[in-house]
C-alpha cells in the first residue's frame, strides 16, 4: 500500500517564531521525496508534523486524502526513523524489530517469525538475538528500517538517518535505501542537509530555507535550473556574480557585471526583469571553460590551483575584483594559462542563470 500526502498551506509557529511558512505540496504514493535544507530551516519540524508529533498552526496535512487533524502519531499510517535511530539499547535486535508488533498484541511466536523475515529483507540474517550495541553503524541503520517496516506502514519518514555514518558507509547506504524503497514500494519522505543524499536518492526534492519551500523539483531540474538564489547556491557549488539588467530578450537576459563586462543568461522561470534591476548571475564551476571568443568571455587571473586527480580547481580573480571558481576536467591537456597567469574563460548563456538578488546559502 502506498498513500499520497498533501500539505495544504501548512504553517507551524512556535511562539513568535515561524518554523514553517505556508508549505504547500503534494507527494505521490510510492515516491521518494526529500526535504533538503540547512539546519534550522524547518524541515524536521515539517516531518514531525506529518508524523503527528506537532500540529500545524494553520493548514492541513492529508494522508491518503484524509485530514490528519487530531490523529496522534500512533494512529497514523506513518513510521518515523529518527536521526539517531532511537533503537532500544536494552532489547535484542529481534525485540527491537518486533516492538511495534508487541504493542499490537501479536503473539511471541508470530513476532519472532516476522522479525526473522524482516532481517532477511535487510540482509542481516542470524542477528536476531544480538544486542543492538553489538551491531555496526550500518547494521543498526538497517535494523531501524526493519523496525519501521514491521507493521507495514504506508509511509516511511526518515529524519537524517545517515548523518551519523562515515562517508563510505553513507554512500553505500544511499544505494541500499533506494533499493529497499523500490523493493517495498512505499512512499519515503527523507529529511537531509546533505545535497548529495537528496540528489542521488530522490524522485523529487523540496529545498527549504528559513521555513519557506524555495523549490520543488526533480534532482536534475533542481541542479540545472534553480529558481532562487538560495537554491542555486545551496545545491552544488556555484559562482554568484552581481549584475545589473540592461536588456531582456524573451528568455534571455543581458546584464552588466562590474568593469563593463556584458553577460548573457537565462531568466529563471521566464521572470520579467526591468532594466536597471540588481540581480545575481549564477554559473557552475564545471560550466566555465577555456574560451577566446563567443558570448560571456572574460579574462581572469589564476590566484589558486588545487589538483584533485580527475579535476583541477582554479580560483580566479577578474579585473573588476570578482572571484570565480573553475573546475577543469583532467583530460591530459595542460590548462591554457598564459605566462602572466591570465586565463581566458567563457560560459554558455544557456547555463547561466540570472536570478533575483536574495540570500545565499553559507559555506
Amino acid at each position, binding site marked *: 500500500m502506498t498513500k499520497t500526502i498533501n500539505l495544504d498551506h501548512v504553517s507551524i509557529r512556535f511562539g513568535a517564531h515561524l518554523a514553517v511558512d505556508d508549505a504547500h505540496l503534494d507527494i505521490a504514493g510510492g515516491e521518494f521525496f526529500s526535504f533538503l535544507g540547512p539546519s534550522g530551516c524547518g524541515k524536521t519540524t515539517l516531518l514531525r508534523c506529518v508524523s503527528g508529533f506537532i500540529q500545524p498552526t494553520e493548514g492541513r496535512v492529508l494522508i491518503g486524502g484524509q485530514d490528519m487533524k487530531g490523529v496522534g*502519531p500512533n494512529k497514523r499510517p*506513518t513510521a518515523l526513523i*529518527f536521526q539517531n535511530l*532511537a533503537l*532500544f539499547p536494552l532489547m535484542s535486535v529481534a525485540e527491537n524489530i518486533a*516492538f511495534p508488533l508487541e504493542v499490537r498484541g501479536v503473539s511471541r511466536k508470530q513476532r519472532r517469525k516476522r522479525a526473522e523475515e524482516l532481517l532477511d529483507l535487510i540482509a542481516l540474517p542470524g542477528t536476531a538475538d544480538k544486542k543492538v550495541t553489538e551491531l555496526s553503524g550500518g547494521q543498526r541503520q538497517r535494523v531501524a528500517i526493519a*523496525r519501521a517496516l514491521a507493521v507495514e506502514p504506508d509511509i516511511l519518514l526518515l529524519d537524517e538517518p545517515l548523518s551519523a555514518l562515515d562517508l563510505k558507509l553513507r554512500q553505500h547506504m544511499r544505494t541500499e535505501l533506494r533499493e529497499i524503497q523500490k523493493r517495498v514500494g512505499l512512499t519515503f519522505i527523507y529529511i537531509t542537509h546533505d545535497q548529495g543524499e537528496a540528489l542521488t536518492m530522490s524522485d523529487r526534492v523540496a529545498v527549504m530555507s528559513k521555513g519557506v519551500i524555495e523549490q520543488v523539483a526533480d534532482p536534475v531540474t533542481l541542479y540545472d535550473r534553480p529558481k532562487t538564489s538560495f537554491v542555486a547556491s545551496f545545491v552544488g557549488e556555484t559562482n554568484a556574480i552581481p549584475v545589473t539588467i540592461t536588456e531582456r530578450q524573451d528568455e534571455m537576459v543581458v546584464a552588466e557585471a562590474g568593469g563593463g563586462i556584458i553577460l548573457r543568461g537565462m531568466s529563471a522561470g521566464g521572470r520579467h526583469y526591468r532594466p536597471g534591476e540588481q540581480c545575481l548571475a549564477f554559473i557552475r564551476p564545471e560550466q566555465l571553460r577555456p574560451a577566446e571568443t563567443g558570448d560571456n568571455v572574460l579574462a581572469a587571473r589564476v590566484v589558486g590551483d588545487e589538483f584533485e586527480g580527475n579535476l583541477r580547481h582554479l580560483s580566479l580573480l577578474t579585473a573588476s575584483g570578482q572571484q570565480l571558481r573553475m573546475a577543469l576536467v583532467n583530460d591530459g591537456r595542460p590548462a591554457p594559462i598564459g605566462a602572466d597567469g591570465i586565463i581566458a574563460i567563457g560560459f554558455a548563456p544557456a547555463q547561466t542563470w540570472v536570478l533575483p538578488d536574495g540570500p545565499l546559502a553559507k559555506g
Partner: protein
Amino acid sequence: MNRALADLRPLFDRYGLGVGLFIAGAVTLWVFILIVLPQVAMVVISFSHNLPPAERGGPNDVYTVSHYAYFLFGQGDGFNSLHLQILGKTVLASALVTLFDVILCYPIAYMLAHGARPSVARLMVMGLIVPYWVNEVLRAFAFRIIFGSTGLVNGLGMSMGLWSEPIDFIREDIALYAGLTYAYILLMIFPIYNAVEALDRNQIEAARDMGASWWRIHWRVVIPMAKPGIASGCTMVFMLTTGAMAAPQILGGPSNLWFTQLVYQWFNDASNWPRGSAYAVILVGVCILFTFLMMRVFKVKIGEIGR
C-alpha cells in the same frame, strides 16, 4: 598485592611523588581507618564477653558466640521471639518504606529528567532539597506535629468530614511510615534520575510513534533504563531506613521498637557493648543480604548499584 601496587604506578607517573603519596595515603587512611578498622573492631567486640575493664586481657577474656546465641535464643528457653520479631518487623517495615519510595520517586525522577521544563525542574529540585537543610530530628518532630491529634492532617480530614474523631496516627504507625518514607526520598530520586536522564527522548517518541501506550513505554523502555538507579536507590533507602534512629524514636508508637533502638539500648542503657555490637553486626548482615537480593531481583551488577 603486586597488582594493587601496579595500579598505583600511573598515580605517581601523573602527579609526581609528593602528590601521589598524599593521595595514596589519604585513600589508605579513608579505607582502613574509617571503614575497615571500625567494622573489624565491632565484629571482634561482638565475639567478646562483657567484662569490667579490669578483667580485659585476663584469663576470662576469651571469644564467645553467646551474644549471637542470645539474639536467637534469649536466656535459653526457646527462641528469643521478642528480638527476632523486632528485627523481622524492622526489615519488613523498611522494605515497605523502600517500596513506597520507589512508587513515589519514580514518577518524580521521570518528570525531573524528561517531563518538566528546565525552569520547572530547577524549582522541583529546590523544593526537594531545601527541606533537607533542616535536621533530621527536627523534620521528625514536624511530622509529629502534622500527624498529631490537633495537627494538619486531622484538622483537614475532620473539617472535610472524612472522619469525626481525631485519628491517632502515631499509634497506628502511619506517622512513622510517612516520616521514614520522606526521610530518604532524595536517595531514591537522584539515582533513578541519573539513570533515566541518560535515556534518549527519541526512544520515548519512537515507542509512541509505534503505537505504544504510556504504561508500555514505561514498562519496556524507561523502567529497564531506570533499573540500576532503582536498585541503587532501594539499597540505600533500605539500609538507611533499617539504620534509622531519630524517626522511630520520635514517630514510633509506644509499643513499637525499631531494631536500632535495641542496639542503642544495649550500648547505652545496659552498657553491654559486646551484645550491642553483635546486634549491629546482625543488622549489617541483613543489609548485605538485602543488597544481594536487589542484585538478583533487578539483575544488575554491584558496580551498577554503586554508580
